[in-house]
């Protein structure tokens, strides 16, 4: 047994007073969860502490909170680990607050309807059956069902929404949870509206191209859903397979970066902006959209030139890697982009190889159902270890 101090953020909406912090001392074994500690407080000291909870086993998604400033499930966080990163660095105090980006109802309980569920509803979260509906089951390749299991693993806990940095500055951003939910349908061969879903989310100024690519949701998710990865897949399918050129410059930006590196080997920054707005061509800078943007950026650009930060010649011509290397790079582009199907390895599904094990013979990737969703997972070698921190490359 060890003694821990829980510092809980309290808020009583009926009191008319501001939120405040209250400390409670609890005695529990170090491997127990923060939720168990909070429940002990409720049971023995103060039954008015409000927290949603049910299964205690990280499957129902009720107990999403922020522990020491980081979002996660209270039932899933061990006391000893939480105390280590705790507020007072004394190894025993744990700060627990409600999740962010959502209004607080009371104590650790937030209004998920107002934010999380609203966004889920936004993405038409039900299967729109491909016709005709077969008499028995749809025939769906094994790989596809395994692929969407990652999105299906989402327990709607809200941890990703809590700390989404895009949502912090743009509350209308569709968000990580809803995007992962959208992928669950886009990746399901039985859904009839892959194109429509992608077009909708790509054209929405607060849609998939509003994600600031900060990885916060990947770290927050207790289930390995990796919402940001799902957003990137949505972008990939939208641009590559459906050629959706959105009004938000998302597809153009992607095509610009990819194209510039093929043509220069390096980012040609001066071209990045015009081509993201005007399309991938030297003449993009004369496109009205690009022109307007360039005009808007004039203060920064002129200052940069005046300071000598930006070299005009280099801005015009760009900088390249040596010719032979550029040719090699272009060869790689040709080879890889020329493939009929994208070859992708999803570590969530294939796991990590063990050091000592030799890879077994590959399984042939099953043919993917037609419908524009070319996503075979790479053949996985045999026995894999589950993801764990100790396996990652800590360079």
């Amino acid at each position, binding site marked *: 047994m060890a003694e821990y101090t829980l510092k809980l953020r309290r808020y009583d909406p009926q009191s008319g007073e501001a939120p405040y912090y209250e400390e409670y001392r609890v005695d529990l074994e170090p491997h127990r969860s923060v939720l168990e500690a909070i429940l002990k407080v409720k049971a023995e000291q103060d039954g008015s502490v409000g927290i949603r909870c049910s299964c205690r086993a990280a499957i129902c998604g009720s107990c999403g909170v922020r522990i020491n400033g980081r979002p996660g499930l209270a039932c899933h966080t061990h006391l000893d680990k939480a105390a280590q990163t705790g507020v007072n660095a004394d190894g025993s105090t744990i700060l627990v607050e409600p999740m962010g980006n959502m209004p607080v109802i009371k104590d650790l309980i937030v209004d998920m309807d107002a934010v999380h569920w609203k966004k889920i509803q936004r993405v038409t979260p039900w299967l729109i059956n491909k016709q005709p509906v077969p008499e028995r089951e749809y025939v769906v390749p094994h790989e596809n069902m395994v692929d969407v299991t990652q999105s299906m693993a989402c327990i709607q806990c809200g941890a990703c929404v809590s700390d989404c940095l895009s949502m912090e500055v743009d509350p209308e951003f569709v968000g990580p949870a809803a995007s992962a939910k959208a992928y669950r349908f886009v990746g399901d061969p039985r859904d009839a509206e892959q194109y429509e879903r992608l077009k909708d989310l790509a054209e929405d100024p607060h849609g998939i191209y509003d994600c600031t690519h900060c990885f916060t949701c990947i770290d927050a998710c207790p289930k390995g859903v990796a919402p940001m990865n799902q957003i990137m897949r949505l972008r990939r399918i939208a641009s590559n397979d459906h050629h959706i050129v959105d009004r938000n410059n998302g597809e153009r930006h992607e095509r610009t970066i990819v194209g510039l590196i093929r043509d220069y080997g*390096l980012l040609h920054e001066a071209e990045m902006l015009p081509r993201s707005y005007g399309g991938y061509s030297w003449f993009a800078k004369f496109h009205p959209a690009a022109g307007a943007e360039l005009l808007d950026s004039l203060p920064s650009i002129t200052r940069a030139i005046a300071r000598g*930060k930006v070299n005009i010649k280099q801005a015009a011509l760009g900088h390249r*890697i040596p010719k032979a290397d550029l040719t090699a790079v272009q060869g*790689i582009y040709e080879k890889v982009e020329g493939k009929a199907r994208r070859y992708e390895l999803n570590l969530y599904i294939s796991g990590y190889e063990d050091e000592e094990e030799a890879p077994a013979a590959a399984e042939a990737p099953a043919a993917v159902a037609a419908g524009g969703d070319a996503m075979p997972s790479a053949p996985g070698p045999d026995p894999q270890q589950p993801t764990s921190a100790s396996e990652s490359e800590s360079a």
Partner: protein
Amino acid sequence: MKVAYWPGCVSRGFTPELHGSMAAVAPLLDIELVELDRACCTGAGVIAEHNQELADTLNARTFALAQQVQGAELMMNICSTCQGAQGECQERLDANSEYREAINGNLAAEGLSYEKGLTNKNLLWLLVEEIGLESLKQKVKRPLTNLKVGPFYGCYIVRPRDRLGIDDEHPRDAYLHWVIEALGGTVIDYAGVHKCCGFPIVTMNKQASLRQAGRHLSDAQDAEADCLVVPCPLCHLNLDLQQPGAAKAVGRDDLAMPVLHLPQLLGLALGLEPKQLGMSKHVVKPTSVIDWSSAVVGAPAAA
């Protein structure tokens, strides 16, 4: 120590002061830089968004080139985004030998091949893990006394934690704090320390992008930081080059927060002058905000 040095694209493009200051401080830190000038852009996460195999192949090529540098102890980058983008590719390559073999197949035409297990570190990690804070402290000629520095890490070097090897033994998301203190400066903590500068969406949702930059700059300024320090030139672009726009996006007309590259902060402490470190090239000139004669005490101590 000798390192296979990937300078990135932007340090040779729109933030030349980064490239220059790194070259200037390397000898002072006993680092021999062997530049990987044959390597191409890491893709900054965008090529991976478009096609994972392409990103993994291009970066495997860079790794293979690094592995060819004789006597290099590891590969080093000066950009959080490079670290993160390369790290994502390396994770896949190292996790699955079959996949690695297939990717190496794409490199066969050039006779290149990536061998699993390359060590790739950002300058920030190298300072703490290879050089060591004690050793760094000893090299300080001009302690940054009275300089209040706000660290800004950049997303790609602090998340996801597992992939970046951030754990109890390597609290890499605190290294910038430590380095500032080792150089004699005062760390200013503010809300945005580990948040996003907004660069990835600057062309897709400019307002949201600049609002992020604006907030972090404002929070640091309100916390009375004299300057920010960033280990990522893309962050630098959104925080410095775009600072006028960022200020407008958050309705602040009093924003004047100089943003230093990590090698510049190092250079100052190691005895170099602001001009040598290219600090006059910034959009928000550090010298117009910080009076170096008072913020950084005296001239360098005698060797």
